[in-house]
């Protein structure tokens, strides 16, 4: 396989391509900031993200990141293990690539009368670069840097509609909470460093023994790290920014943050807690972080779903539902046990992938609605299926998929999470509570997801509206997302293998 001959650095091709594209757009912007050549700009962004996606897919198929022992091309770790390219890294690079591509394509129409096109796309791709790098980060340093690289552009992106109060308010809240959490995160890093004397994750794991007498310090540090991840993944108690940020931000950005950024947050959480803090050792140190995640998972999914149940603003409902899904994905960490747990962790990864499609699609539909200017509440959406059946079929697909009803992708991942939780329950009965919470919340979520379907399909429009335009980019993105959400069901075999393989690889 050609990959072998290349220098190791090429293993980082996916983020690099994103960075490159970002720079290209940045240059373009600095040369001609007011350019409204949308096809070119959006095209470059889309091509760049698709290229990164393609490379990542190619890598994972070519066996990059699969240990040689398993017939792959071996795990690449660069800069003394500061960065690592293994299956999980590639898996999440794919997620980021997918979402970025969808968002760039959709933005083509959404930003039709926005002043600074290029800056927008370059920011998006910079953030994407950060997320993609997070997937590969293997040291608290790189994690922190890439995390900030992802965050800072995001702040700007949320507030990019400078004259829109909602956007600004969202940006402010997002930024302030973000600053606070990153401060906490950094402090956590410093404590962990203090307790172990290392930043590189494997090294931390090796030196945990030294932390016997400082376990309190280490514990607080670990919790602070969790805080950082919780912020990035919009999990309780660091989720408060999410509803506002998603509601206020431009819909494509909301899609971008709620799918890709969330996934990135999870990948570092997965890596840190599987690599740096092996559960068995931490338990001897009295730091049983799986308990924390059990609590967080239950609370997060409950808060998210319950708050979503009675929203009137579609976007806000989706925002809360994305909090709820963060809770589902947290099961991946909560379900980790001293021996194994790759099933549940893999399930979490699958969920994040499928979520990348269905949730992005859902937000993009909102983008479409904002593009049409039909309004933001459920009532405003009433009877849209008469004017735009295709988009509404897609919406129904996203909603039912989010609710976990077959025959859509969301069914698999959610039920695998459930299955994984139950499997883990054999080792840790607390997981039964998680599974129960999952059932209750799924039932509730079905209620509010089907409310949206009801609005567009069953209700009659409050006021008659003339036929709606069909913006190419948005439609393309939405339809692609929908098709993927459906096709992923029959074609789930490889996805499941990849995810579970990746999970198995990082679990000690």
């Amino acid at each position, binding site marked *: 396989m050609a990959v072998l001959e290349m220098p190791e650095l090429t293993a980082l091709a996916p983020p690099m391509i994103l960075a490159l594209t970002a720079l290209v757009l940045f240059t373009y912007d600095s040369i001609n900031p007011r350019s409204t050549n949308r096809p070119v700009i959006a095209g470059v962004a889309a091509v760049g993200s698709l290229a990164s996606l393609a490379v990542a897919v190619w890598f994972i198929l070519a066996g990059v990141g699969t240990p040689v022992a398993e017939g792959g091309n071996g795990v690449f770790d660069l800069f003394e293990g500061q960065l690592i390219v293994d299956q999980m890294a590639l898996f999440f690079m794919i997620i980021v690539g997918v979402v970025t591509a969808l968002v760039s394509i959709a933005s083509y129409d959404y930003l039709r009368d926005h002043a600074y096109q290029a800056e927008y796309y370059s920011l998006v791709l910079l953030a994407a670069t950060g997320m993609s790098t997070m997937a590969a980060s293997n040291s608290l340093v790189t994690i922190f840097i890439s995390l900030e690289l992802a965050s800072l552009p995001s702040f700007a992106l949320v507030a990019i509609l400078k004259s829109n109060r909602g956007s600004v308010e969202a940006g402010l809240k997002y930024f302030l909470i973000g600053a606070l959490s990153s401060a906490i995160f950094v402090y956590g890093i410093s404590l962990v460093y203090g307790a172990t004397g290392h930043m590189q994750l494997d090294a931390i794991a090796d030196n945990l023994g030294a932390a016997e007498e400082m376990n309190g310090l280490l514990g607080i540090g670990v919790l602070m790290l969790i805080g950082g991840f919780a912020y990035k993944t919009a999990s309780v108690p660091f989720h408060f920014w999410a509803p506002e940020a998603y509601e206020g931000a431009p819909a494509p950005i909301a899609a971008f943050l709620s799918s890709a950024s969330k996934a990135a947050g999870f990948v570092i959480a997965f890596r840190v807690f599987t690599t740096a803090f092996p559960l068995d050792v931490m338990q001897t140190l009295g730091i049983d972080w799986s308990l924390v995640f059990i609590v967080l998972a239950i609370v997060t999914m409950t808060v998210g779903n319950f708050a979503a149940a009675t929203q009137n603003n579609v976007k806000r409902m989706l925002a809360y539902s994305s909090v709820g899904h963060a809770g589902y994905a947290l099961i991946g960490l909560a379900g980790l046990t001293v021996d194994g747990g790759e099933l549940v962790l*893999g399930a979490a990864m699958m969920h994040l992938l499928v979520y990348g499609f269905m949730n992005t699609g859902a937000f993009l539909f909102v983008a479409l609605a904002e593009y049409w200017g039909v309004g933001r509440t459920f009532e405003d959406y009433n009877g849209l299926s008469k004017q735009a059946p295709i988009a509404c079929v897609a919406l129904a697909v996203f909603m039912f998929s989010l609710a976990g009803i077959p025959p859509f992708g969301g069914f698999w991942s959610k039920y695998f999470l459930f299955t994984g939780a139950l499997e883990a329950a054999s080792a840790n009965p607390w997981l039964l509570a998680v599974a129960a919470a999952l059932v209750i919340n799924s039932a509730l979520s079905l209620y509010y997801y089907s409310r949206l379907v009801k609005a567009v399909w069953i209700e009659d429009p409050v006021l008659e509206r003339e036929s709606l335009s069909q913006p190419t980019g948005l439609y393309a993105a939405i339809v692609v997302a929908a098709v993927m959400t459906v096709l992923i069901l029959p074609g789930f075999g490889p996805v499941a293998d990849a995810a579970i393989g990746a999970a198995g690889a990082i679990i000690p």
Partner: protein
Amino acid sequence: MMIEALIAVALVGALVTFVAPNRIAGKLAFVISLVPVAISLWMFAVFDGSGNALLDGTLAFESQMEWIQLGDYAITWFVGIDGISLPLVVLTTILVSLAIMSSWTPIDMRESQFYGLVLFIEANLIGVFVALDFFLWFIFWEAVLIPMYLLIGIWGGPRRKYAAIKFFVYTNVASLVMFGSFIALVFALGDGVSSFALPEITAAMLNGGPESFAGIGSGTLTSLVFVAMFLGFAVKVPVVPFHTWLPDAHVEAPTPASVLLAGVLLKMGTYALLRFNFTMFPDQVSQFVVPIAAIAVISVIYGAMLALAQTDLKRIVAYSSVSSMGYVILGLVAYTQFGIGGATFQMVSHGLISGLMFMAVGVIYNATHTRMVTDMSGMADKMPIAVGVLIAGAFGYMGLPLMSGFAAEYFIFFGAFGSEASTYMPLFTGLAMFGIVIVAGYLLFAMQRTLFGPFRLETDYEIRRAPLHDIAPMFVLLGLIIALGVAPELIFEMITDAVDPIVDLAEFGGDA
């Protein structure tokens, strides 16, 4: 690959119909739906399976292929047909075709979407009855909800939104409970199983059963799972007290949806009960005989009493479905050849009869735009043929001999009375049988008020005779009902063949 063909035809047909112009959608869907009918009848003709699908019987049209490796467990595409599933598959295909034809009159908006959804339901219903891998089965099981939700929600009556969401959420919760408990069971079975294939799981259950799981002892776990799954399916069946979604859904649903709902969807629940609870947990069944039998009796009597109190024809039929499903539970818990066989037979029989009843009520509704017993009388004067068929169907419901309903109920009663599951079974049977009096009561009252007497109609709506395509499906159903009543062996033979292995599981043998 015939099964795949069956499902594929329905799915593709659904897509085609969905994009077809409204004008031709109905006819198109009907023509498409004839293909599955043909295939299933052909299957019926050449059926060569024997024994029970879950108890290493030989399957007909079996096909199995790898799909997903989930940790230590394989999820496979695994379908096959045995004597229990075949009649239900045939029932489904036929009922769908007839339902489509019967909806030509009432459905006058967004036809292509409507018929597309109906065909989509058909695909999933067939899947439920043929799938032999738990995950696969569960996909079909759940996928039925969406189209039904939309059918009720879009084309339903005034309170359709409430009814639809209630049906959707309620049954979905039940499914989740069932799913969870079953998965827990599979994991508790440990190394005994390496896939979600039902036969394998059944085998593991029957020799040894689960180890303790998550700190719950083996025995307790099995009982818990049994109860949880019973509750899960009980909502679908539905048995009292989990039935309240049914009348709402039925009343609000458009006629063809009601036909499918009562005709096939309810059978999913009883079918699942038979496949899971009563095949995999024989010991638990014997442990819970009395409560289950009691629930069955309550469902029969209570459901019939509720029907007696209704004045909406559809509500009457809906509640009587609850009552009829109670018979099925009674037959299952009897755990005898005629008990379980009769229960299965009742699934088919009730599918036909309730379908006929809903169609007949629908035809009257099309003509009068009311379903209220109090609003009309003497309909027999205006639409003799439709009313004639309705009367025939009603008597079928009352269990008139030489119609399938009698055969089914008689088998169930006989099996239950002779059952040794519990010493109280004869008592339960006697109580449940009183249902045949109440059912006669409310149906005769309703018919007397609506069909007979001098003609009177509250709504000023000009009555026109029902067109042929409304009547024809009812005659087909009536023919099938009588055929099965005169010669139950048509399907009872294969049913008993598939049921006997289950009966042999019980340590209390059945005499009847």
